């Protein structure tokens, strides 16, 4: 039966490798409450081809806040910013870095 090569040629159920179905590379923007009215914004999952250090520098200047880069064991490098900068960060990621809006997820209240 293996002589019938025709049947093997194409598997319709094979993974086509469409980027749309891959849910892995989301960028998560979260907020965390600190003491008092203070909050912390974390940006997780920025693709590695971007230079986080330079991004952070620009973000700090633009939003007039402090921030730093935290290295996490599983999640890679995460940007932390002081205050609620979620919407501003998303805008920046879309406008300046040209990322897709559907790949960015904003969490928190």
């Amino acid at each position, binding site marked *: 039966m293996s002589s019938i090569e025709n049947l093997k040629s194409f598997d319709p159920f094979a993974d086509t490798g469409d980027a749309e179905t891959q*849910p892995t590379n989301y960028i*998560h923007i*979260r*907020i*965390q*409450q*600190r*003491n008092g009215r203070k909050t*912390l914004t*974390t940006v*997780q999952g920025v693709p590695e081809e971007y230079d986080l250090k330079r991004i952070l520098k620009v973000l700090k200047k633009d939003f007039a806040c402090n921030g730093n880069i*935290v290295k*996490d064991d599983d*999640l890679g490098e*995460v940007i*932390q910013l002081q205050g609620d900068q979620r919407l501003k960060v998303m805008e920046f990621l879309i406008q300046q870095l040209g990322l897709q809006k559907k790949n960015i997820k904003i*969490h*928190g*209240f």
Partner: protein
Amino acid sequence: MSEDLGFDPSLKKKKKVKGKTDAEGATTPSEENLEEMFSSLKKKKKKTKETDTPEPVDELVDGLEGLKLKKKKKKSTKSSEADDFDKQLEKAGIHADDQSSASTEQLQQSQTQDSLSNSVLAYENLLSRFYSILKEKNPELAGGQHSKLKIPPPEVAREGNKKTMFANVQTIASVLQRNPEHLIQYLFAELGTSGSIDGEKRLIIKGRFQAKNIESVLRRYIQEYVICKTCKSMNTELKRESTNRLHFIVCRACGSTKSVSSIKTGFQAHVGRRKRV
């Protein structure tokens, strides 16, 4: 429009009924007598009925269409009462036509009248009858509007200085047909905090949150984990496949299944006092 609809069929029916009575009269006098007897009987029945229930309906109809010409017509029919049965038949026909858009009770009355008089088995009447019955038996099929699930607004109160109490998690979870644990896990992951459940099954969340914050998170939870993606129904079930450890939304309305991502807490920044090294 409505006047036209009201007038034309009634006229036709008049003719029909008259023709019928003529034919019956031509056959035999005894039958005619019988007919008259029956008609009187029916009339009496009808009258008693009408005095019992449909009078207010008539008044309502009159009130509704007080500005139209029909009122005059009806009044005249009421006042004269010459060939009562025929006219009542006619009336019934008119009623059925008029009330096609009215409430179901009225419709049913008109239908009983219809069943008494077979001559008004018109398509429109049958159609309206069908829809009224359908509305009664299963309203989801009849109307475009779904019976929307009523989700009670979250009762959120501050407990102490740094904690928030979310009183009705359990009821909301039961309305959404979800495990409260799952909902609480999502809330904690989204709000980036932790908390506990107190003795009265209320949720205590660390941190200060307002009702609108919780509400927006709840809305996102419903979007992601409750609403069926294919038919937008809220009547769904969350099932966990033990073989591949995936969660699936199973819709009870359309039967579709869709996998949903598990809840991930993500990165948690260290907040508070640092550890002494």
